[in-house]
């Protein structure tokens, strides 16, 4: 099955998955409400988005120089910087670090870059005991799944799913224990993961931002798991991608002001940690080594393309929370590390257009993603560019014929108007006395999951022409009334 055909099948399955639909009904909506409140409480939120965009654009425009400055300063601070052109390179670098450290247990905090390169699987294949410590990631790991959201990986699970997998996974605990509230399940996970934190030899985290002026990484979590991951083992590995660098702390603060508000609606994430190198001579805790692995994996090419703005992304997830398609099908159907609008814009660049360009078709182009993006990525136009590139892929004879017919039609206004008139009249006839059409002949793919609103008047162009005529009439009437008043008041 092609990736595209698989996508269609997964969408059908997701729409028919009642538990998934119940899970999707509340959580993204909660994020949307949270963001709205956070935005209302910060009068300068909208200007701040433009500041965020400019900071990211400036950093990307001089990415090579900022990366060099970052490497220099990070090295001075005692970190070791590794460059990885591909996901495979990054995995090998991390494997070598873990082997050199003689590691058995490895803790990980959430990192989408590690998902992108499937690092956990690679480390497990090499017989390391690897544990995800972000609670959502831990749930995804023990259920052998993939994250379905970039900030809430287990958003597709309901509380009872978690209780079930805990009973199966934590077999050494009393079988008759109560797991009927999130509090009890979180207490159980805390106990299990605490032992792993204390046993870990290597801790792997991502980074939200890299700061060139000091060679520091900024890592945010609400659980505090990244801090335990980086501070307890003797080796800390920061795995992130080359696009995360900003010039100075003063450039990071506006982005951090935008990040949590856009993501969960918090004004600031509970733990924001600036880490600069390994343990210092008089420090009683912290790792002896700090490695920073910087992944490219297609980003340099994206930087050189017209779609560079995608690299502004700060991974808040607001675009998916506000996407009608994501909220209907969830993250797994995309079969892409990054789901939702940012996934449709980014994944084809990382995984190859043949693998992922079809994701851009899963959009209504309603533009809500663009309106909420904290760094103003023009997601709709990027998706449109992927759509036109996808046209170059081989497709069925029927699809080609229809696209050609449409192109012809769109280039001949008179024929277009005539056809649109017929279509509007037929749809009105099909709807009968109702305002909605439940089933369309030949186009059931549209009406299988939603009704089509029936046209209530003429075509759009007819209504537009009528509106122009009315306005002209009104203007003429206004002019003659004004003339009449003028002649009345004349001396």
């Amino acid at each position, binding site marked *: 099955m092609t990736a595209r055909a698989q996508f269609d099948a997964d969408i059908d399955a997701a729409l028919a998955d009642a538990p998934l639909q119940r899970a999707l009904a509340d959580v993204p909506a909660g994020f949307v409400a949270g963001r709205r409140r956070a935005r209302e409480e910060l009068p300068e939120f909208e200007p701040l988005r433009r500041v965020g965009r400019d900071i990211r654009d400036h950093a990307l425009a001089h990415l090579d120089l900022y990366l060099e400055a970052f490497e220099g300063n990070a090295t001075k601070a005692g970190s070791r910087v590794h460059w990885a052109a591909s996901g495979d390179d990054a995995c090998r670098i991390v494997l070598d670090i873990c082997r050199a450290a003689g590691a058995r247990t490895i803790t990980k905090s959430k990192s989408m870059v590690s998902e992108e390169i499937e690092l956990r699987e690679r480390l497990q294949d090499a017989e390391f005991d690897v544990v995800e410590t972000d609670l959502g990631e831990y749930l995804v790991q023990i259920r052998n799944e993939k994250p379905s959201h970039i900030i809430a990986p287990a958003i597709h699970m309901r509380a009872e799913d978690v209780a079930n997998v805990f009973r199966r996974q934590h077999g050494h605990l009393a079988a008759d224990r109560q797991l009927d509230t999130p509090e009890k399940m979180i207490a159980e996970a805390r106990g299990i993961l605490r032992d792993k934190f*204390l046993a870990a030899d290597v801790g792997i985290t991502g980074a939200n931002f890299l700061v060139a002026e000091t060679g520091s990484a900024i890592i945010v979590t609400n659980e505090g798991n990244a801090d335990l991951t980086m501070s307890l083992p003797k080796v800390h590995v920061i795995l992130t991608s080359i696009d995360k660098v900003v010039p100075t702390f003063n450039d990071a603060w506006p982005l951090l002001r935008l990040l949590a508000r856009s993501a969960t609606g918090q004004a600031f994430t509970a733990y924001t940690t600036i880490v600069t190198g390994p343990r210092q001579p008089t420090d009683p805790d912290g790792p002896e080594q700090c490695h920073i692995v910087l992944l490219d994996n297609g980003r340099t090419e994206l930087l050189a393309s017209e779609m560079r703005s995608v690299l502004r992304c700060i991974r808040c997830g607001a675009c998916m929370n506000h996407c009608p398609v994501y909220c209907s099908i969830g993250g797994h159907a995309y079969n892409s590390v990054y789901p939702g609008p940012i996934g449709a814009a980014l994944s084809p660049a990382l995984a190859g257009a043949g693998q992922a360009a079809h994701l851009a078709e899963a959009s209504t182009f309603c533009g809500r993603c663009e309106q909420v993006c904290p760094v103003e990525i023009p997601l709709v136009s990027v998706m449109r560019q992927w759509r036109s590139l996808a046209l170059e892929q081989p497709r069925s004879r029927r699809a080609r014929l229809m696209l050609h017919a449409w192109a012809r039609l769109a280039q001949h206004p008179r024929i277009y108007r005539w056809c649109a008139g017929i279509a509007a009249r037929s749809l009105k006839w099909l709807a009968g006395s109702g305002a909605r059409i439940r089933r369309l002949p030949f186009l059931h793919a549209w009406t299988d999951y939603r009704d089509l609103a029936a046209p209530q008047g003429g075509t759009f162009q007819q209504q537009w022409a009528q509106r122009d005529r009315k306005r002209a009439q009104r203007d003429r009437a206004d002019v003659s009334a004004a003339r009449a008043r003028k002649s009345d008041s004349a001396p």
Partner: protein
Amino acid sequence: MPSEATCAEAVAERIAHPLQHWPLRSIRADEPAGVSKQALIGRFKAQLGRLGADLIEVGSVAEIPAALANYVAANVADDAAGLARIRMGSDAFLAALPWSSTSGLEIATGKAEAADVIGVSRAIAGVAETGTLVLVSGADNPVTLGYLPETHIVVLEAGAIVASYEEAMQSVLVATGGRMPRTVNLITGASRTGDIGGKIVMGAHGPRRVAVVLWAA
């Protein structure tokens, strides 16, 4: 297309003289002199309350041990001998407090151990914007004290409350003599997660409870 030399200059300039995106209108006072310290302290306390953190206010340095002991007695279960053990680093300010004036506390020093229940740290600054505590790692305040124990008590001088993260970073560099510590920890409320059923629950991995002892001379 700008030349390579021009780009390098632009980058060096940006790092040498960071842009000022601050201040935010919502905190900046209308008066040109800036927001009063009292207003900042008020905002900091209000934000702490929203985060669910506990606030213990004391009028002098000498009152800190007793206030801390009372809080511990009321909120954290003590051991069979009636002693609650707190752990702190070698911070000179904390060490100089009159601990002998209070009973019921057993003080351990050094980095956090797995069995520790209460960690006590001193914050370099507080950020009024979001009720954020700013701590630096090191022997004075080992970073693990804020993450392993279930209760984290942070001592903060009201005068160290600043408006923004930008100013707090200046406070950090003043305190460390311009050196970056291994970590600067910005702590905004207790450890939390919303990963099970979307419900926010405190105490995911780090402290279930964060309390701030705010002292003013």
